[in-house]
């Protein structure tokens, strides 16, 4: 994997980690509920693992497709899927329904997995890995490596933001700082889809 790909994967990890909807906000809320910094930190691993699971499954599915179909078809298929999802994210407003505030670690990981999947976190990462690697072993290790880089970056960002908000800023910062990332997210997806088609 070249340096550019690593940097893009890291950047996307940071972008996902910054998004309150991807989990740090949930961790902060659980910390405030229990009046405990430990509760914030305890919530982060399941959140990050759920996110990583969603990314890894997406990459693995496309790796399987690459083993079974000609490269151009896979490229155009991925491009159409990612762009289409980006457009859908632009036009569709959803009100997610979830279990609530009392969650086990597994439920938290499940929530994170669903949020990442519903937002297309793996799809955004996908084009970076689309043109490198051949054969089962190489594709598998590439998927794992890409997921690991993305996840480490996400973990670092989301932990930093969660602690900063919990310890220093307070949740009032949300009122000003919580920009509607849905547009940025959708545009990033469309951009990723376009790059899948043309690179």
């Amino acid at each position, binding site marked *: 994997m070249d340096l550019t790909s690593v940097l893009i994967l890291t950047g996307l990890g940071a972008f996902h980690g910054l998004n*309150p*909807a991807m989990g740090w*906000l*949930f961790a*902060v*809320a659980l910390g*405030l*509920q*229990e*009046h405990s910094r430990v509760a914030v930190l305890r919530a982060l691993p399941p959140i990050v693992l759920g996110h990583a699971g969603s990314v890894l499954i997406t990459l693995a599915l496309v790796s399987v497709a690459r083993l079974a179909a000609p490269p151009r078809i896979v490229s155009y298929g991925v491009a159409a899927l990612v762009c289409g999802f980006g457009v859908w994210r632009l036009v569709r*407003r*959803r*009100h*997610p*329904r*979830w*279990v*609530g*505030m*009392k*969650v086990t670690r597994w439920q938290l990981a499940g*929530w994170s997995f669903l949020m990442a999947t519903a937002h297309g976190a793996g799809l955004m990462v996908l084009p970076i890995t689309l043109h490198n690697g051949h054969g089962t072993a190489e594709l598998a290790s590439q998927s794992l490596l890409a997921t690991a880089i993305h996840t480490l970056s996400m973990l670092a960002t989301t932990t930093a933001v969660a602690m900063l908000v919990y310890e220093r800023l307070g*949740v*009032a910062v*949300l*009122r*000003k700082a*919580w*920009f*509607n990332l*849905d547009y940025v997210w959708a545009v990033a997806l469309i951009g990723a889809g376009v790059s899948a088609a043309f690179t």
Partner: protein
Amino acid sequence: MPLIQPDPTFYPSAREAMSAPREGLAYVALLDTAGEGRPDGLATIDLSDGTIVGVHDMSVPGDELHHFGWNVCSAALCPYAPHPHVERRYLVLPGLKSSRIYIFDVKDDPWHPKLVKTIEPETVFKKTGYSRPHTVHCGTDAIYVSALGNVEGDAPGGVFTLDHDTFEPKGRWEADRGPQELHYDFWWHLGHDTMITSEWGTPNQIEAGPSLELLVGREYGHKLHVWDLSKRRHLQEIDLGDQHQMALELRPAHDPAKTHGFVNTVISVEDLSANIFTWYLEDGIWKARKIITIPAEPATADLLPEPLKQFGAVPPLVGDISLTLDDRILLVSCWGTGELKAYDVSDPFSPRETGSVRIGGIAERRPHPATPGRALNGGPQMVEASRDGRRVYFTNSLYRSWDDAFYPDGISGWMAKVDIADDGSLSLDPGFFVDFAPDGRRAHQIRLQGGDSSSDSYCFS
């Protein structure tokens, strides 16, 4: 169109909501006195001087508007279902008698709310199996509406939801209602995934007016029900005692880490008192304890309406309560005796009365300082505290057929305001009196522009 930043009227915590800008407008439901004459109305009040800016008449008569609410509120910031870039711009008004639901847009011209959608009763019946929608709360994932009964006007009553975007009824909320039959109010502890519901009576029990027979038979509601909010299952019932008839308004602590709240019962069949209970969680079990008893006040029979003559006393008939956002002051409206009381409930098990004002009342008919010579009827009824907990607005009509039983001369609608001092004492604002007599309709629920103390719920401590 979604916003770029969160709606500025959303606050992560109740404490932050206390620093919100002062309320400028109030929206008040107006009920037609005759019931089937003119339509009900939605009045807009300029709170700087109490003038009625305008009244929007509903499309048809006979709705009996009750506890309306906002489409979305601070719960949109909840981390497990975040969608804060929506707008608090629609008021959802349920018609208790008609089962019709109106959606008003207040964004473009807050002084003149615009009707943008009407959900017809048949749609509510068909999609939910319920009728008589009563209270609206903005939830994390939908708009929640309570309904007093089924389509026939009998039990069970319950909760149904409306889609946030389309306002279409989505169906019954309960997955397993257990023993719950009667229904009135509902609210939740979001931090604990718990819903609480209360009991008044079925539509067929209440629509004709209060029944002495049902009261003596202790057949009105007297229980609370505890639910798993996420699984939508009944967990537990708490019987407040069948002498305490009509368990009405639920006011959970606004801090989501807390596990207590307050409920009023309207009348005790043993001594005509009204009572306030605290519910609380202890060792995994929800319980309730009586914390306030407001006794009936003796009065000569000739000052009393027919149902009360035999008792020689006026029951307080507590119809509404309101809790300030810091969970400190509980306002209690005694519609029978014409008194608004304030209690410091910082310790929810040992309340301390901090203030009282008197206006109207069955026997007293006490005037407002703005109109000193005029005996007022009705009494403090729907009460709403401002976000900063410094001002309280209240109206004087309860429910048309019940108004007429206790105030047989017919209620002349008004709205008043009290100021809350630092020590919790109350003083009537002598310059604020909204007189609905020229309009002729009666005032009920109040909502304050941008939210108030009984509309929003919070996920952060």
